[in-house]
């Protein structure tokens, strides 16, 4: 089972974890991204995430399907938030349930690593002296 969502509203960790829990699973790995107060030693005031939503949902769905092809997993959830986020808020939650924990860890890590490379979502960091679209320039 796959659950994919992009939302402007705060993500709910507990709802995500409840969704992946299943009597057939022994291990759940959950990755929670949070907005950090600094990047490369510079204070971050807030972030903004923008998504090309239709395509991003399609790419997120592909990642979940790849996880099922590569590992013996039972439930995969990927939620990503958009809009303005304050320090400490949660831009992304990935939760994977599997009968055995190794598959849950491997799949969860694969999904977040690959999401950062392929899913059309962009992050803008706001500092006291300006803002920058992350990774845009070499």
């Amino acid at each position, binding site marked *: 089972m796959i659950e994919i969502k992009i939302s402007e509203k705060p993500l709910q960790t507990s709802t995500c974890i409840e969704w992946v829990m299943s009597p057939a699973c022994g291990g759940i790995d959950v990755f929670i991204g949070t907005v950090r107060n600094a990047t490369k030693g510079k204070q971050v005031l807030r972030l903004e995430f923008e998504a090309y939503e239709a395509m991003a949902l399609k790419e997120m769905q592909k990642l979940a399907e790849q996880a099922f092809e590569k590992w013996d997993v039972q439930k995969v959830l990927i939620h990503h938030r958009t809009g303005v986020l304050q320090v400490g808020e949660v831009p992304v939650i990935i939760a994977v349930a599997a009968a055995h924990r190794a598959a849950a860890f491997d799949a969860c890590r694969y999904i977040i690593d690959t999401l950062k490379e392929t899913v059309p979502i962009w992050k803008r960091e706001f500092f006291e002296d300006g803002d920058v679209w*992350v990774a845009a320039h070499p």
Partner: protein
Amino acid sequence: MKVNVLAFGIAKEIFNGSSAEIDLNEEATVSDLRTALEEKYPRLKQLASFMLAVNNEYAEGNDILQQRDEIAIIPPVSGG
């Protein structure tokens, strides 16, 4: 033909808007569009890279474009 190119992230700043209209020959490819975009918006060359998407899929250079396609410029992504 004229195609409309959707923009996100820094590309919106470079286009000065959420899309740009580009003139292309009939049967133009994704590579042709890339060349035309870089000509019209030289700041695109300063990006680490950019991809083009056609109908919500990453496109290859020799894919042929059609006027009804949904086309988007994808600057380096940074979600998560």
